[in-house]
């Protein structure tokens, strides 16, 4: 049963991800991306990571993709104004990544992969609730990467502010 559910989500993710790149209309691409986000959230739910699933929908589908659609409509892109002459570069990079993935699966050690999701681990997670466990992990084990990520976001924010205030700063000097 779990395997069927997993393969459903996984195959829809792969198909919609391909559609995002393949479709001509940017709005339809965005919609395919929306379907993909929902199925990624579904995968998280099957792993008992409800918090991640909801955050996935809230942040990516609810905020970022809406912003993206907003920009697409504002620019009112026609189907032709797109970058279709990157085929060679894309093909080259795609082949490399695909070869890497194949190498990883064939040569890599996959024997320990299944053990991480053994059913005996699940009750311990459910006891605490995964919001608390994520919070604890972020503020203990992964404190440094977490702070780095927030610093990067801060830099992006400052950069955006400076870009919009450019005219004002120059006028003073």
């Amino acid at each position, binding site marked *: 049963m779990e395997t069927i559910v997993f393969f459903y989500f996984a195959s829809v993710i792969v198909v919609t991800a391909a559609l995002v790149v393949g479709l001509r209309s940017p709005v339809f691409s965005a919609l395919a991306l929306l379907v993909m986000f929902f199925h990624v959230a579904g995968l998280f739910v099957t792993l008992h990571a409800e918090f991640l699933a909801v955050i996935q929908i809230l942040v990516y589908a609810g905020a970022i993709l809406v912003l993206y659609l907003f920009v697409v409509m*504002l620019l009112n892109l026609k189907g032709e104004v797109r970058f279709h002459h990157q085929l060679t570069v894309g093909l080259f990079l795609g082949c490399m990544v695909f070869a890497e993935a194949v190498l990883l699966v064939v040569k890599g050690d996959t024997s320990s992969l299944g053990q991480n999701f053994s059913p005996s681990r699940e009750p311990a997670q459910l006891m605490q609730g995964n919001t608390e466990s994520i919070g604890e992990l972020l503020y203990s084990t992964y404190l440094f990467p977490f702070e780095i990520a927030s610093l990067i976001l801060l830099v992006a924010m400052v950069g955006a502010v400076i870009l919009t205030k450019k005219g004002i700063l120059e006028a003073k000097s």
Partner: protein
Amino acid sequence: MDMGIRLALTLTQIGVVMVAVLLTVAVLTLLERKVLGWMQDRMGPMEVGPYGILQPVADGLKLFFKEDIIPAGANKFMFSMAPVLSLVPALIGFAVIPFGPDWTVDVGGVNFKPFVITDINIGVLYILAFASIGAYGIILGGWSSNSKYSLLGGLRSAAQLISYELNVGLSIVGVLLLSSSLSLVTITNAQAGGFWNWYFFGGGGFPQAVAFIVFIISAVAETNRTPFDLPEAESELVAGFFTEYSGMRFAFFFLAEYGNMILVSCMATVLFFGGWYAPFEFLQGPESIHWLTGIFWFVLKVSSFLFLFFWLRATLPRLRYDQLMRFGWKVLLPIALANIVLTSIVAFLFPGN
């Protein structure tokens, strides 16, 4: 067998809640016009039935029999998807709202909670996530109609929803800090015992009254109601994103708007005003009739918030677009952030109040 019972119980529960919500929407459409009429010193609808009480039925029949028009040059697929995309998120949020006591009944070996469809431990985030999905219906409806008014309405709405979603989320954080839970059932249970325990009045150590005001203003903006109804401003954009819609598709947008209003009122009730608890314990009655008094108080609180929505509509003029953005980002957001800082200081210094 257990699976079958659980499925049957849950489906019945979902059916009951959906019917209740949709009936409330029908009543609300009449009530809104009556309340507006009363505030503007006129009668409101009077023709259909005594005092016009059959008006919702007439409206429904009219919408049902209207011609379904798809404008030329519209994107047919998106045009028919958009109303559904906006209605489903409005209704799906009711799954985590507790509207009565936190009882667990044993039905044929299945643990069953009669007064909440499902008590997931991230209920608040679940509602916020699906509320943000509601924006798609509006944006895509506006875009696919192939009309300037619709597109402008959709764009305005996208900007407005992104800005005010943030404020809704941040204003709730104070309550979450005090209750240290994301489950709406746990949040309600933490407010038991009288109105001084409600988070609005200072339950948990720090009154969330300011957060509530931020929440209710942002909620009005998120549901596209006056004074924040720029996406459908009838005097400048005809009807905004649903200008081109008719018949049942229009009815879906309409249902979504009113469904969102009820959902937001339910959230305000549960998060800030103690959910189904009475203001004084003796008003709750004995344990055995808690289900009755619980639902009574819940409905009473939700109705007063719905009345507040109508009241605002009758009182306030519409904001301009730049005013709306400035108000959201420069006034509400700092207030919400300050509330979070203060609440976390209090929650840290006096834990377990």
